């Protein structure tokens, strides 16, 4: 009898914690698997503000605009000449960096403009393909401009600018001016 009492006293009321780590591991693995750290990527654009009724849009010289048309089947016209999507990049680069040499292209990089016009039936991926090429032209021009100034690429240049707190001279020189034109009314 006395021995039984003694035994009871020795028993300790603890919850076994050896499996705690395993349980936590299971939960951890569940969250590791379900977590999707997906960064949203896309082509950034800034839309032009709404036009006031009585304000006329500023006059733009014809030669400073590179007109790109995309039709219903995704075919491309650059300055009324049939072209291909992969040729747009170089065309845009020569247009911007023309510096008034060729009368068909822009007068200066700061004045150059690229206009993309689609019809209402143009497939979206054709439009994105063209827009992508135009942006890539700008990216490559900014990169080469940054290399001319002695930086590795444009990203290091912007990082340096952010640190020093100066004006972004490259963007001042080569402005990304892409206009999305309204389709013609039928």
């Amino acid at each position: 009898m006395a021995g039984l009492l003694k035994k009871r006293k020795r028993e300790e009321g603890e919850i076994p914690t050896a499996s705690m780590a395993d349980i936590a591991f299971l939960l951890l693995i569940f969250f590791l698997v379900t977590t999707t750290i997906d960064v949203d990527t896309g082509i950034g654009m800034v839309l032009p503000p709404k036009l006031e009724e009585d304000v006329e849009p500023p006059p733009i010289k014809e030669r400073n605009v590179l007109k790109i048309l995309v039709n219903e089947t995704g075919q491309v016209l650059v300055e009324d000449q049939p072209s291909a999507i992969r040729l747009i990049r170089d065309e845009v680069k020569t247009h911007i960096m023309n510096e008034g040499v060729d009368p068909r292209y822009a007068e200066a990089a700061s004045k150059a403009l690229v206009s993309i016009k689609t019809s209402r039936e143009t497939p979206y991926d054709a439009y994105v393909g063209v827009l992508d090429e135009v942006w890539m032209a700008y990216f490559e021009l900014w990169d080469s401009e940054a290399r001319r100034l002695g930086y590795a690429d444009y990203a290091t240049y912007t990082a340096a600018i952010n640190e020093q707190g100066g004006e972004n001279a490259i963007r001042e020189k080569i402005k990304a001016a892409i206009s999305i034109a309204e389709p013609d009314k039928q």
Partner: protein
Amino acid sequence: MASSHFKKKTSTKQEIPTASLPDIIFMLLIFFMVTTVLRETTVQVRTMLPQAEALTKIDQKRLVTYVYIGPRKLDGTRLGETGVQIDDALVEDMGNVRTIMYRKLIEQPKLIVSLKVDQTSEMGIVLDVQQELREAGTLRINYSSKRELPM
């Protein structure tokens, strides 16, 4: 002298203390629980994003509002006509885009509108939405697209 020295060495425990292991794991667990974002909206249109090269990242997710444009998902795998979805509801009247976006802009002046548009959509509806965004004053947009796979 030598024997006592040896004895001392053998008496030291060679185990790594595992008492703090659950705590470490719980820390990791809590980190992942906090960073996990569960999708709060069901997308009712199909958005197969186009591929592009000139991509920029949107770091600040709380500034972003999504506009989904694509063919409506019907029962099964059938697809309906093109629809526009903002948050968790389809927008039937295009004029409503303006008011919805205007309200969002007041709440978050630095709003970025991410357009998740299906590849096969036509430009007409995209341009209509953009026109409404201009009216609302939400000018920063982003054509959501995937990274081009190397050939």
